[in-house]
């Protein structure tokens, strides 16, 4: 559907990831300088010029699995390490938060304001680092240039594309359950009260006109909700009041992150079915992914002194338990790009492979060039 969706998906998921990591770094009392380094490194990687060039090219969305691979890599762009269970949880929280924002944003165009809320917060994270701030501002200007001219209908197509991406995901998130914006079945609560979207009139009025355009009758009807008139429109400029709160940071040390991984039995069956369907375009997608990831520059693995691990759970035991008890249908089965002995692989791919080497054993040499990329995929 919309070929303009990927940048918004990436920036908003990235923004949510940064909120969560920021909260965990503080909750685990990681020294300020190390925490700052992690945030700065990840933001630098996220807004890498070459990477964003690829990202902003019109293209279809990746599969959930492929995008998860991108975020795995991004989360490990610094000296911080996350194990599988924490990474799963991080990705669950990011995706459910953005699904909520996409579903609830009053008008499709407000997805841009949600993105701007994330961008504003990211700028605040790097306010002391002018060169990173410049990088972020560059992307900000690009977002404004590309997206502000789009019509409501085009934004609706972007929104529909995102909703297909998030379809059938019903992971329960404690912060949403506590705030009563998510039901115990994982569905989000849709309000039938409050301000209507900008440009919409409060429902309840029928106006009848004569042939020459005069209003001849007014009828009221009971709307079944208690709506109020629209708030003013948020600013679509580089600076300004966004008005809507979706996309702002909802975490704090006193409001820790938590998920309930049970899923809903009814929907999880479908979830599995969708994800396991063989995709004949897998190779094409992997090519795109490789190109995109080529721009993701990652720091050399940290040495033992400076590196540290962050846990998305309260204790290490809980984290272990989560890994074991996670339902199979919720497994992302991250694309594991393995090292290959093929000398002809491009330098770019070789670099990507090199950085993933630790995750899998070297594979057999691929039999033909055409299979190179597929050969690098593990467990697909």
């Amino acid at each position, binding site marked *: *559907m919309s*070929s*303009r969706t990927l940048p918004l998906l990436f920036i908003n998921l990235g923004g949510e990831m940064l909120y969560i990591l920021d909260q965990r770094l503080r909750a685990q009392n990681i020294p300020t300088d190390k925490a700052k380094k992690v945030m700065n490194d990840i933001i630098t990687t996220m807004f890498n010029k070459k990477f964003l060039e690829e990202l902003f*090219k*019109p*293209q*279809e969305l990746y599969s959930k699995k492929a995008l998860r691979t991108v975020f795995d890599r991004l989360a490990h762009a610094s000296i911080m390490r996350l194990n599988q269970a924490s990474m799963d949880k991080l990705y669950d929280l990011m995706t459910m938060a953005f699904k909520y924002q996409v*579903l609830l944003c*009053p*008008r*499709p165009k407000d997805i841009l304001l949600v993105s701007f809320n994330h961008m504003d917060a990211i700028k605040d994270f790097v306010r002391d680092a002018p060169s990173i701030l410049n990088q972020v501002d560059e992307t900000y200007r690009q977002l404004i240039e590309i997206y502000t001219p789009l*019509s*409501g*209908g*085009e934004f*609706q*197509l972007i*929104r*529909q594309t995102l*909703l*297909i991406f998030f*379809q*059938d995901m*019903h992971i329960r998130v404690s912060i949403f359950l506590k705030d009563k914006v998510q*039901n115990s079945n994982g*569905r989000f*609560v*849709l309000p*039938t009260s409050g301000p*209507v*979207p900008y*440009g*919409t*009139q*409060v*429902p*309840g*009025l*029928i*106006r*009848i*006109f*004569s*042939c020459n355009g005069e209003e001849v*009758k007014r*009828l009221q*009807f*009971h*709307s*079944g*909700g208690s*709506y109020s008139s629209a708030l003013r429109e948020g600013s679509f400029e580089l600076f300004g009041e966004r008005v809507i709160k979706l996309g702002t940071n909802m975490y704090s040390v006193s409001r820790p992150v938590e998920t309930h991984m049970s899923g809903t039995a*009814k*929907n999880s069956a*479908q979830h599995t*079915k*969708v994800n396991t369907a*063989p995709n*004949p*375009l897998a190779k094409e997608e992997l090519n795109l992914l490789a190109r995109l990831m080529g721009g993701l520059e990652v720091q050399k693995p940290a040495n033992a002194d400076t590196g540290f691990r962050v846990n998305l759970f309260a204790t290490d035991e809980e984290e272990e338990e989560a890994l074991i008890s996670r339902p199979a249908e919720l497994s992302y089965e991250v694309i594991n790009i393995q090292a290959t002995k093929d000398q002809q692989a491009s330098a770019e791919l070789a670099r990507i492979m090199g950085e993933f080497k630790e995750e899998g054993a070297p594979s057999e040499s691929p039999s033909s060039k055409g299979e190179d990329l597929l050969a690098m995929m593990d467990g697909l």
Partner: protein
Amino acid sequence: MYHKEKSIQIKSSASALYNNLSVLRIAPRSLTYFTVVHANVVNMVSASWDGLNFSHRQLQSKEGNIAASSSLIMQASWCVLPARELLVLTSQKGIQMYESDGSIMVYWHALDIPETPTAQAVFARGIAAVRENYICVGVSSGSVLVFDVPSKGSNIMLSEVLEEHRDSITDMASECSGSLECIADLVTADDSGVLCVWKSGEDFQLLNKIPGFDVCCSSVKLWKGTVAAGYGTGQIRLYEAVTGIVHAEVNAHARWIYSLDIAPFSGLLLSGAEDSLVRVWHMTLTPETNSVEIEHLYSECVTDTQICGAKFCDGDGYAFAVTGYDLSEIIRYTQA
């Protein structure tokens, strides 16, 4: 006025797409067919009127010879012509026409897809059967494709391309009253809210172009010469098709409207929106004064569901069916 019936389960949940429910009543066999789009799959259910038998079928978006693909489907709709009924699917790659039971694909029309993806998405959306032998389908470029469909066989021909819209087609509808006195046969709508009113024939004739106001018209219907249009602002407007005169303006929903339907025998209008509400309205035509009035009859809140499809199940509006994003069921309501 309406009460909820037992829901029909579908194999996979509905995607958030305009007019994402199509209903076909097959009276001789006491069956009703339903289709709901889920990403790259169409869920088809045939339900017997006694509510005892359901049979399911899933159609993939096939592109010509490619057996499977990830191409997303935008809409599925049954087209009823006097001689035959076809199920039409529109996707990112093209247009497929099936026999009404989904068993055989009789026609495939590929869209022009650029080598590298462009900023402007490519897809087909908006489906209508017009008069004796035409099926019209909208395209993201704004073109409306007119297909000439023989009474049987697969010799379907692209007979005309109508180039009046400048934005992506969202929906289209043919005159649903069956009255031959109506001049206008077809109304087409686009992303900017422009409506084009057409007379069908060997060459389709543009009767009127009703300007939009830069608000997307997501669903449109045509009944006894009156256009009912639903917009992204939650408003419904009734226009006289051939003149463009506005008869009524209704602040109907708090969010984007996804679907409108008309029960032609009773003049009932059904609207469904992202605000989780479905509403039933009654339209009255007074030919002597050339006026159309509309009143609100009934509202139902489908809790926590952004509605993407709402259709009457019969010509009187005795029953209607609703689907919503992420919902794996078709909810039915029947008059008490």
